[in-house]
């Protein structure tokens, strides 16, 4: 090894062990150092001791060939085991999924597709609060509507808190009107149709009661999801502001990206406006503009934001 500077005693020791011929100056320097440094002296001894052993033995060639074969086989086997373990894991997971489907039947979680079908229900207009009925196929209601964690966060973020009052939990809305008598043949679609007819007839109380029944009896149906916006709009019209806010918040918690999300945001913002909660209204309108910049409610929201800024 070529040195740009003179080697340290450690390197001189190593060079000696390799049989390198040191120059007279280097040898003298090393000897002087080793006489005064016990640690380097023992190291030099140890280097010399180990340099004397480890020489090749006569049967090394066969020994190495045998060990190398085994080592390479072991290395390849290890890699195969890794692949086999990964494949086994995939098979076990697939088997578990199949077994689950066979035993419990296909799970019907609230999917994007279903929410999209909810969007097929015409939304209530911001000016006229009458959802036109649309026949939809009834679906078996799962035990509990499944919520996405982000959904819950979003719901919490816009949870309706009426000013000066204690908010009712959105899961258990107080029933402001008596429920309709139960009928075995009533489907969510027909309930929605009845509510639209009552609304068209100007009977807001009856329309609200029908929609509340829909929410109570078919909580996981697509119609029920869409009906939260209609219900909120009806409650807003009837002056039940805290309940209206709760209904809009419920829709946004179930379907934050649903087709009626901008209607729900607008309804929630309007509710805050009428309650005089400026900060909450500002946040909701900003959110509406951020997510739906070309919404029909955008112009109104911008105007309200300007008013609130003054």
């Amino acid at each position, binding site marked *: 090894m070529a040195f740009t500077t003179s080697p340290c005693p450690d390197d001189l020791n190593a*060079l000696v062990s390799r049989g390198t011929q040191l120059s007279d100056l280097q040898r003298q320097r090393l000897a002087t150092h080793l006489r005064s440094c016990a640690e380097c002296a*023992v190291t030099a001894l*140890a280097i010399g001791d180990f340099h004397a052993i480890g020489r090749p033995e006569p049967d090394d060639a066969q020994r190495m060939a045998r060990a*190398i074969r085994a080592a390479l086989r072991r290395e390849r086997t290890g890699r195969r085991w890794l692949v086999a373990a990964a494949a086994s894991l995939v098979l076990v997971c697939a088997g578990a999924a199949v077994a689950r489907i066979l035993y419990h039947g296909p799970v019907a979680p609230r999917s994007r597709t279903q929410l999209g079908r909810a969007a097929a229900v015409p939304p209530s207009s911001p000016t006229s609060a009458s959802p036109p009925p649309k026949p939809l196929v009834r679906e078996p209601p799962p035990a509990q509507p499944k919520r996405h964690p982000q959904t819950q966060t979003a719901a919490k973020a816009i949870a309706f808190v009426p000013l000066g009052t204690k908010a009712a939990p959105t899961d258990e809305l107080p029933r402001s009107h008596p429920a309709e008598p139960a009928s075995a043949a009533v489907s969510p679609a027909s309930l929605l149709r009845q509510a639209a007819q009552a609304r068209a007839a100007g009977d807001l109380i009856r329309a609200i009661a029908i929609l509340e029944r829909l929410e109570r009896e078919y909580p996981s149906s697509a119609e029920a999801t869409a009906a939260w916006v209609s219900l909120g709009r009806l409650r807003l019209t009837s002056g039940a502001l805290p309940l209206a806010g709760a209904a809009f918040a419920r829709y946004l918690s179930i379907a934050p990206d649903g087709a009626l999300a901008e209607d729900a945001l607008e309804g929630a913002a309007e509710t805050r406006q009428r309650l005089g909660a400026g900060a909450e209204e500002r946040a909701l309108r900003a959110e509406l503009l951020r997510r739906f910049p070309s919404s029909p409610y955008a112009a109104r929201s911008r105007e309200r934001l300007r008013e609130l800024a003054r």
Partner: protein
Amino acid sequence: MRWIRWARRTGQPPRPGKPGEVEPAARDVPSRAVVEALVRETAPAMLRVVRRVLGPSHPDVDDVFQEAAAAFARAVVRFRGESSIVHFACRVALLTALAARRRNRSIPAASSRDRVALEDAAGLTDAQASPYEALLAERRREVLRRLLDELPSAQAEALALHCMEGLMLEEIAAASGCSINTVKSRLRLAKRALREAFAANGHNLTTWTEEG
């Protein structure tokens, strides 16, 4: 077969950028045949390291060497040419052997260890040394091996590469992937521990002569 050419260039660390020198590319993963060739080429050095760490007559030499060869075959795909391939293989063998020693620390009994030391001293040391000097040398080797079991891993690695393989500071730094100052610091602490271990075992340091 750039890897083979690279493997044959042993004994000095690479100097990137030197004209005419072929460095393995960063993504140049060697094939199975190349790995086998590299293992065969570096096997003598690895076997020597294993023998020095465990002792030439240790019954686990073959097993540990096989383990080291397998570890080298796995590790060589990550070799980036910071050191020579032989030093890289030596380090893999050293770490494997040190781990095996620490794993089986309770196995060798004092009496059998002494017998092995005597046999080693009788058969494998320098022919010019007297039997007494050969025995002393084997005792010192055994002291150092036991010290390697007790030192922190980084210090044990630096001391073993320096004392057993005669690597210089720059080569140890390249093989271990650390700076020379770090190697100096580790080696200084390890050498102090070695001196204390020799003194505790009653070895006379005045046996060192200028001729080595």
